[in-house]
């Protein structure tokens, strides 16, 4: 295999370990994010062990019309990107490099905890996405992070599955 072909895989593996603080458990790719308990990727002390694993090549669905996932989910009280988010985010990055346009990265939190603290948490999540896109080569001035905290839930129930849907960043 030529190095050129390996480069994206290597880059994503590095990014995965850098951004995700990744554990060695690759999670099965799930685009709805409802089963958030399946992977806990962050370690508390910030020490991370990188692994190439399946994380870099796990796919994200691309619909028939060519649209890609625009909502990315997060674990409770975490702002690290999930490995299953990376493939779609890379496509967003490629498109933004090819066709620069202003994008809003809207960060959200679930309802647990205080509202202003959740505003900060939503912003951290939006910033994780921004950081990833910038590392991919997107012009950071095109990307604005706007946190909605817990003020705009995607699902109104007070259940684990509802909260999983609410901890998200939407690319708009």
């Amino acid at each position, binding site marked *: 295999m030529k190095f050129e072909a390996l480069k994206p895989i290597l880059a994503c593996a590095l990014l995965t370990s850098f951004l995700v603080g990744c554990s060695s458990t690759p999670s099965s790719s799930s685009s709805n994010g409802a089963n958030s308990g399946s992977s806990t990727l962050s370690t508390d002390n910030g020490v991370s062990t990188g692994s190439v694993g399946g994380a870099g090549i796990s796919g994200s669905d691309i619909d028939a019309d060519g649209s890609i996932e625009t909502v990315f989910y997060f674990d409770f009280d975490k702002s690290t990107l999930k490995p299953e988010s990376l493939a779609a985010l890379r496509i967003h990055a490629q498109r933004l490099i090819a066709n620069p346009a202003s994008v809003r990265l809207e960060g959200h939190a679930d309802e647990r905890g*205080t509202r202003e603290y959740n505003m900060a948490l939503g*912003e951290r999540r939006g910033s994780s996405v921004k950081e990833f896109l910038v590392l991919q080569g997107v012009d950071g001035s095109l990307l604005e992070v706007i*946190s*909605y905290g817990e003020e705009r839930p995607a699902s109104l129930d007070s259940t684990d599955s509802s909260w999983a849907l609410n901890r998200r960043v939407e690319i708009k």
Partner: protein
Amino acid sequence: MLKKNCRVLCLFLFMPLSALAELSIEITSGVDNPTNIAISPIMMKGASLSEDISSIVSADLARSGLFAAMSRANMLSNPRTLSEVYYRDWRIVGMQYLVVGSVLRQSDGRLSATFSLVEVTGERVLFTHVVKGRGSELRDIAHYISDKVFYTITGIKGAFSTRLAYVTAINEGGRQVFRLMVSDADGARERLMLKSKEPIMSPAWSPDGKELAYVSFETGRPAIFRQRLDNAKREQLTNFKGLNGAPAWSPDGKSMALVLSKDGNPEIYLYSLATKTFTRLTRHFSIDTEPNWMRDGKSLIFTSDRGGSPQIYKLNIISRKIERLTFNGSYNARPRLAADNRTLVMVHRSQGVFHIASQDLVTGDLRVLTQTRLDESPTVAPNGAMLMYATKRGNKGVLAAVSIDAGSRFLLPSRQGDVREPAWSPF
């Protein structure tokens, strides 16, 4: 791709609003041995009044949890003046106190209510007092009577004449509509301050009670506004990229502590209302947010996760010295300080459930005050006797209150939609 979010904003001048979510009171528990008090009907001879003064006073006192107010149907007599009081009528039904009074229309059209507080067992009159107001101010007259009676018996200044600000979110045509509301402390006379299709959050009173600061997303991103209650005049104070949040007026009313993330992550700033300048107060890569003032105006308390989990810290504005205040549990946030400058109330996670807790800043004792779940946004009454907070009932956001000693509680459920983020006005 950038969505321009300049939505139409309906703004009413502080006008009554009857059709929307008016709050009602549901007392869930009181102290074990409440003081028995009877409020004899306070009426105007030969005319009816638009508000039932004695019922409002009875409800005020009962809501404090410290009083049990006698129902009118059980009263053996309905004295209006001291000369009509037969102590026996009240002694045999176990009353400790009795309020009698009457209303007169003066020649200038204003109303004048004369009322007396009587101690039944000692058969003595504790005071006789007159309060005057317009016909439209009967609820104010009633709350004034409650305050005077409450103070005379308990020694605690009554907070019945104060107000609440809060945010409602109501689903209208599949979309949430947000409103900033102000009501009396008992939930009556609800008024609309601001309506928006975008979120409204973090209402905070000015120390003179004449203005509110809040966060509104109407521009498409969060921004801090201030707005007068009397004429709805308002001003946008911040328009930075990132967070613009958690405004808190200083005790002297001249500045605001607030949160901006324009320099990369959430930091606390001091904003001078006169010079419109910002001074950065915190400098840390963690989240610093939710500032609230110590009474002397020299220190702030705030939430920070600089120690690895959200905890409450104290910041001296002059020396910039920072001191951690909470050590109990892995989530303590959104601090508010009671008027005694020593009782801290906050959101505290205990066994995975979010409650409101108080902590004595001198002894360090922590006490969980609430039994509901997903409790947030505590706000202390200006007399320090009660605190209000937001909680969930089913899937609905409601306001609830608990006395600072956790002895009495009540709920303020709304007829529709979510109610959240109560802010208790100053005196």
